[in-house]
């Protein structure tokens, strides 16, 4: 059984905790856009290279 004090402490802690850990990620949308675009392009190139490279 938790004491009232412990429960209050836990409640306060829960209020202070943000829902999403990404909250603390300080990265710009632009950087992510570049990662996604570059990654997708690399995958497509590799796929095409793999599929058509041998012929």
């Amino acid at each position: 059984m938790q004491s009232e004090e412990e429960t209050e402490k836990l409640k306060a802690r829960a209020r202070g905790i943000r829902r999403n850990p990404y909250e603390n990620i300080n990265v710009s949308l632009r950087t992510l856009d570049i990662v996604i675009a570059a990654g997708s392009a690399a995958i497509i190139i590799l796929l095409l290279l793999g599929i058509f490279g041998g012929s």
Partner: protein
Amino acid sequence: MADTESAKWKEWFLNYSLYVILGVLIIAVVVKEPSFLSFNNFSKIMAQASTRGILALGVAGMIVYTGTDLSAGRILGCAAAVSASLLQSVTYASRMYPNITEPLPMIVPLILAIIVSMMFCCINAFGISILKMHAFIISLGTQLIAYGTLCLYIDSQKNGAQPLASLDPRYIGIVNGHFDLGFMQLPYLVIYLVICSAFMWVIWNKTTTGKNMFAIGGNAEAAAVSGVNVTKNIFCVYLIAGVLYGIAAFLEAGRVQSVTTATGLNYDLDAISGCVIGGVSFTGGVGTIPGVLIGVIILQVINYSLYYLNVNAYYQYIIKGLIIIVAVAIDVRKYIAKK
């Protein structure tokens, strides 16, 4: 106006880039080999995706509450060895248990495979919920324990470490059978995947355990304060995963018809990748069952199509790795864009 239109397209491409990649892949494969686009291939892809799909359904629950499971593949290997060893044909001279002279009822090896998987999952759940260990570390330990156990089990055969093969034809029939729909064959494996998915959908969306799992993933402390028993819930998630691993192991052994120490290798990574691609967020509290299935099928389409065209298998590793990075970047981007 043109700027708005192009921004809209850019946004669409960034959010759905994985589907664009899949589209490009299918078009390229069809251009190279038009026979790829057939119901027969579709049925093969679905059959191959089914055991990994069932495994991914178990792993997804853990990811939703911010955990993970690196041991899933090796647990599958271990449980698959148990079911294969008990279901070797009774006419096979080198079978692991020569004392079994009458075929066992199918349910016995299935239940044993589930029990073996649940035992390993209990170790993970104990480490995470009671010892407060990180899921990554405890499941890494369990992975090695499961692998060692698998090797010892396979090595304990009278004739040394040989693959567990020559399985009971009833077993192979139950796993590899199919319904003939005329235009295509519907493998039983797909039916098993659909049943497991429906079962998991109900657990995730209609039960207290499922709701609590999302609550813990969203904010564990808040869930605890709200009266959710976090320890009990984590055990529940792992035990359900254990049941799914056991079923997947039973099916996988029957599908490949030969269990070795390599069975299950990298299956955990495929399952985790499938979940991430399907939108199950590593930050916890986000994920859907259809998403997991789509993620697993995307991976399987890539695997199968490249294999179909005899593309060097090493490309697959690089492509899979890049896909995971892009999937996580999309996940983070969605959150940041919303913020």
